[in-house]
């Protein structure tokens, strides 16, 4: 037992993994819980694969080791597969149904596994898929996909939904609060 609830948020640079992790961090402050996080900055952000570690209740180092994440939130289906070995036995993966095909795959005619292939490779894991783009558009803008995903993951996160929503309010630009809260609610209602 680590004593913390460890969440790995993964995706493609530019999808807003850091904002999502900030919301979780802020929600921890609201509940008076300690928290540790580790982020990807610098060159790796330029459209590359990115990972953000968040340890809710964490008191020591910020890194989550492979095989120990309680929850993986993936903004891209292919990235869910790439980081799936971080999940602990009995952990949950909440993933976007869509994938951004890496540009290098187009350039070099590389085979990219399709949605069905990836879900097959993930079988045996507890995987919940979310059509984040559709829900984000319903909320008002495609840019809210990260908050949709957070909403979808929220039932598994040991933080009260009100704390998470307050954290959304505090973390997103003031003009976008309503849209983001709508995105959060649509996400939360999404998983079957």
């Amino acid at each position, binding site marked *: *037992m*680590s004593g913390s609830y460890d969440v790995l948020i993964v995706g*493609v*640079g530019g999808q807003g993994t850091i904002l999502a*992790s*900030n919301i979780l*961090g*802020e929600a*921890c*402050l609201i509940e008076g*819980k*300690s*928290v*540790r*996080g*580790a*982020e*990807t*900055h*610098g*060159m*790796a*952000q*330029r*459209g*590359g*694969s990115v990972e953000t570690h968040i340890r809710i209740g964490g*008191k*020591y*180092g*910020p*890194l989550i*080791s*492979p*095989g*120990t994440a309680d929850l993986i939130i993936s903004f891209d289906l*292919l*990235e869910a*597969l*790439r980081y*799936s*070995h*971080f999940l*602990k*036995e009995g952990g949950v993966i909440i993933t976007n149904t869509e994938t951004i*095909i*890496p*540009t*290098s*795959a*187009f*350039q070099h005619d*590389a*085979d*990219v*596994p399709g949605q069905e292939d990836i879900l097959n*490779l993930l079988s045996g894991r507890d995987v919940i898929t979310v059509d984040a783009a559709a829900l984000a558009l319903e909320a008002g803008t495609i840019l809210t996909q990260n908050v949709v995903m957070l909403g979808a993951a929220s039932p598994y996160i040991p933080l009260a939904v009100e704390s998470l929503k307050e954290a959304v309010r505090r973390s997103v630009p003031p003009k976008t609060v309503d849209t983001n809260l709508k995105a959060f609610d649509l996400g939360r209602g999404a998983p079957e």
Partner: protein
Amino acid sequence: MVIRYMLGNEVIAHACCEANIDFASGYPGTPSSEVIDILRTQDVRDFYVEWSVNEKVALENALAAAWTGVRSLATMKHVGLNVAADPLMTSAYTGVTGGLVILSADDPYAHSSQNEQDSRRYALFAKIPCLDPASVREAGTMMVEAFSLSEEFGLPVLFRPTTRICHSKSDVEPGEVGSDHRTGHFERNPQQYVVIPAHTRVLHKKLNEKQAPVARALVEKGVNTVVVKGTTGIIAGGIAASYVQELLPENVSFAKIGGYPIDPDWLGAFVGQHDKILVVEELSPVIEEAVRMVATYTIVHGKMDGYLPHEGELDPASVASAMKKAGIIPVRDFPQVTPVPDIPRRPPILCAGCGHRSVFYAIKRVFKDGIFPSDIGCYTLGIQLGVVDTTICMGASITVGSGISRSGEERDIVCTIGDSTFLHTGIQGLLNAVYNGANMTVVILDNRITAMTGHQPNPNTGVTATGVESPPVSLEAICRSCGAAYVERVSSYDLTQCLEAMKAAKARKGVKVIIAYQPCVINARRAGIRRKSFTVDPDACTGCKACVRFGCPAIEFHEDKASINALCSGCSVCAQICPTGAIRMEGKK
């Protein structure tokens, strides 16, 4: 104060404000950049802050400020400390009056760096104290401590966070920002500030005399601590100490090294109380060497006997594995897992509409058989386009180019270097290449900003770190005054212009410079520049993939046809490349 969820670099910057910092300088470098970025964007700022043109310049500025009695900070990444090594080594001799903290951020695993060097070695080499935080919170308290330690001993202090401190976050209760600022006054003292041999021999002796008291003070101040629990112990430093603390069983002793030099008597006493010691640290075995120096009958495990790796970064699982190997049972267990194999890679990539891509395309078209030295910046990603043959350190594209040129190699040499890197250490290389008659083409990728590290301004931008207007330097004038015979300025988005300039350069002898200009596409978007997107006419597209090979993330290829996605920034270069005219501005026939 309220508790906040803060980035390590934010905590460090805040601690500088708590410590009443008066002067800050630095050169951007991941993972250090946000410290100056946060200091320069404070709403209320009653200290001086600058982005310097390189790390040597930054340190010399901060050192001089500290000589005048103010509290100063110089920031850089670990490899930047190599550039600043010259003033560093002698700054220990001259010492300081006001506190001087040199922040050098290390990057275990080389997340965004060209090597995995250990800045603690530099501190020991220069004989200055080094503070090495184990957590984001400690980074704050230690930064405040660093300034007072510097003033107590009259020495610069090296502050060494790593990526997992700088770019980690934690709940932190930051302290009060100070308002007790000083004004510099230079006290003439040639015996201290003029390091002629007669003075420096005396200064060196004084420096050596400070070593033992500094080491003792680090113990007395609780920077280096021990808790004795049994006959087995772990000694750890930096972020690795946090990993150990999470895994440490009740009956195992623990020594935490937060500062250097380590007092050998203190360390020897701890080691001597134990049968077995495991040393856990990232990068070089700095603590381990010190432990082995004082260990007599104690068995010591660490990197030097293969219990821990010499390279990469540690994590809880790798520390647990070393503990088990040493017969220490960690309080947490880690499963053996393997990643799913053969997943298509997703490396970082130049942005859609990045001006560098079209310049690389033009270079490749004109100089098919060329040799392509490059440099440090976003454009190092040009390796994916086959136009980056070498990268070693800042400014080395031009010098590697001239070296290859004078080696007798006869193929064309075309090097690429960004504007910020050119101003950092590229100019000397150009001057040298012209002076010594090299035969090469230098392409300056001018996007008016230091993009990769987060868009810091430089002398080519037109504003200072704090947003004050400053006249942008003329790259053309610099290149011409270095003696370059051919200097041409082109728009990176104008493929014809780029190709013509490349051909003209190829036809000439000597050092030719092409300045390819286009603002960084991220910055342009932030500044409100919007261009119409482009689209592919599927009827005209023959599926030749010329645009796909261009490698723009806005271009996709499905069912034998190219298409353009929402990332398109309207640079138009793919339309210029398309042989069938199938790519057009949206809304145009």
